[in-house]
């Protein structure tokens, strides 16, 4: 079954349009069904060429891109796409190789799921990417789950109502992760953000800092409540939804 892309006007309440580029019919079919069930508008493409053309002519709010397309290499597609579009991209990688994930994230992907993936996992990634990022003038409280509260305006972090004394770096790490809640943040990204571009290799710094931050948050890495490690890739702040 094929679903025509409905020409939608830029109304505020319009459902988000998701473009799925995957060559496997079964994957397109179940993504189509489950994404539409969530109220998204779905467009489908089975080759990189068709997908890029569809994105260029009709646009999309989010792209789900399979890395193993028959006509072109996924990394190459990402590179070309990023030349002219800033649309959020979730890549589907078939190998559980962390190197491919990192390469895709480096090439401009915003997040990844590994095939075979659960629909709930994919939907959580989509929600995290479609959520508007808090900007400077926006909300100052970027996270509050009733236990942990992060307030950017006052640079205040509290745990169970008690203010938490964090070092400058600890605060910066927590704020950066929380600002990207639900999305993976790669190690080089964090190192560049916190220590500057000359320290992107110094992952040891990051490990120590994360361990300290977790300790202060009483967050257990073996059963994390907020900060999840993706081995070999980076960190992810668990999104409340």
């Amino acid at each position, binding site marked *: 079954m094929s679903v025509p892309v409905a020409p939608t006007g830029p109304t505020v309440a319009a459902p988000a349009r998701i473009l799925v580029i995957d060559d496997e019919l079964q994957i397109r079919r179940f993504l189509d069904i489950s994404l539409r069930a969530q109220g998204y508008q779905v467009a489908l493409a089975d080759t990189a060429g068709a997908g890029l053309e569809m994105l260029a002519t009709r646009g999309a709010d989010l792209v789900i891109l399979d890395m193993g397309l028959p006509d072109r290499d996924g990394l190459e597609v990402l590179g070309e796409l990023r030349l002219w579009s800033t649309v959020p991209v979730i890549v589907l990688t078939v190998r*559980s*190789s*962390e*190197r491919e994930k990192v390469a895709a994230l480096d090439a401009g992907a915003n997040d990844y799921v590994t095939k*075979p993936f*659960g629909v709930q996992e994919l939907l959580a990634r989509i929600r995290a990417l479609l959520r508007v990022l808090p900007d400077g003038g926006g909300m100052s409280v970027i996270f509050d789950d009733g236990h942990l509260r992060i307030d950017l305006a006052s640079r205040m972090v509290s745990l169970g109502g008690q203010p938490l004394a964090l070092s400058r770096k600890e605060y910066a790490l927590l704020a950066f992760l929380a600002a990207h809640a639900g999305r993976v943040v790669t*190690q080089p990204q964090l190192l560049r953000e916190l220590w500057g571009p000359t320290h992107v*290799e*110094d*992952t*040891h*710094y*990051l*490990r*120590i800092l*994360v*361990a300290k931050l977790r300790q202060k948050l009483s967050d*257990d*890495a*073996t*059963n*994390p409540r907020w900060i*999840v*490690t*993706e*081995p*070999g890739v980076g960190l992810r702040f668990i999104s409340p939804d």
Partner: protein
Amino acid sequence: MHDEPANPRPAAGYALAALASLLAVLVAAVAERLIGLDDLSLVFMLAVLVVASRTRSGPAVLTAMLCFLAYNFFFIEPRYTLYISARHGTTTVVLFLAAALLAGRLASRLAMQVRELGSINRDASVRQVLARRLAEASSEDEIVQVANSVFEESLGVRIHVSLDHEEPRESGAAADSRERSQPPADRAAASDCRNAGQDEGFLLELRSIKGRLGEIALESPLHATNANPSRQRLLRSMADDIAGALLRARLVADLQAERIANETERLRSALLASVSHDLRTPLASIIGAAESLQSFQATLSASDRDELLHTVRTEGERLNRYIQNLLDMTRLGHGALALRRDWIGVDELVGSAIARLRRYRPDAHFETTIGRDLEPVWVHPALVEQALFNVLENAAEFSPPGEPVTVDARLADACLRIEIGDLGPGIPEAERERVFKAFYSARRGESGRSGTGLGLTICRGMIGAHGGRVEALPGTGGRGTRIRIEIPADSRPAPSE
């Protein structure tokens, strides 16, 4: 003391003869004037013996004659003539000549024997060196290398070894690549040398009981040694030693190839058995459940439908893990596993593996104890996480419902030690090593346990790649199983500045 060349030049021998005679005259004169020595023939005898022991018989005879004349001329009355007045004087000089000739001959023969013995000894020690170094060489290439260096170091001869290969097809390619791998100049030298060898007979054939193995071409013509039969014997026996070593290396290689082929064959059939049994089981469930849903949708209750759908999902995930295992196994088997080390917390690794496992086994219960002093480790994160996942999955599989799987990580003996325990049936002592063999569980086939029997094999492979080890121990308190993973902690570089 026998360090003079084996073949002293004749001219030098005769010069020595003249010099020795002259010296004998001087010494005799001095001895007569200062010491008053009566029988001066002994001084001349000494000169003859010295020359004879250091040269061949020719110079020895010359010395005897010279000494005879000098003795007669300078010291036998009347002096300064060759005329001998007294009868006893005549007897003395004639006896001297006879004794000198005899002694000279004996001495020179002795010297030659000593020289020959020395050269035999040297040959023996060269062969000993060759034998010792050949014993250490295990491959054909190493043997060729040893041959090259022993010939060069011990005999000062450069050689080129060319090996024949049994199958003509292979031989062409091998010879070709061998030729190509040599620098052009070297190759030219080799062929020059081979031509020279054929012309003048400097090719040594490598022979064994299995026939010709190749040949050795000597680079330098060896004019002197070529004429020497003992040197030729040495070269011949060295070539035989090399041929013996080559034959041995070939037999070993053949045996090994056969063993590997057998092992591969065994693994292949085990893999086929595993694929047909363990991969078909979840597929059968998936196909069956999906078909039931399709055919009886209307009549199924909501909970039945849900159960069938659950089957499809969990069996699909199981299938996925099997395939991941097979892929990991292939990667390990091909040695294509490049470690990409990075800093990672042990708690983070354990956490990630547990989180992944929870998706498949939401009912599994874990108790983790991570040493507080554990620093981040320098490992390939994804591999160690996969290794932990495999062990945890196994533990969860065998754990009785409601009982926890324990994870205990600490520093012990400069190693990161992670122990994963379960309270399941445990592993009999005799089987504890065998659980790490590929397809172990598959071979017990019908026992009803699911799994490719690769999980622990892969775990050991991945931890082994880090220089660590994995072993199965009885559970704490005698119940269940404890898998101990150890990764050396000293392989970490200092944290970058």
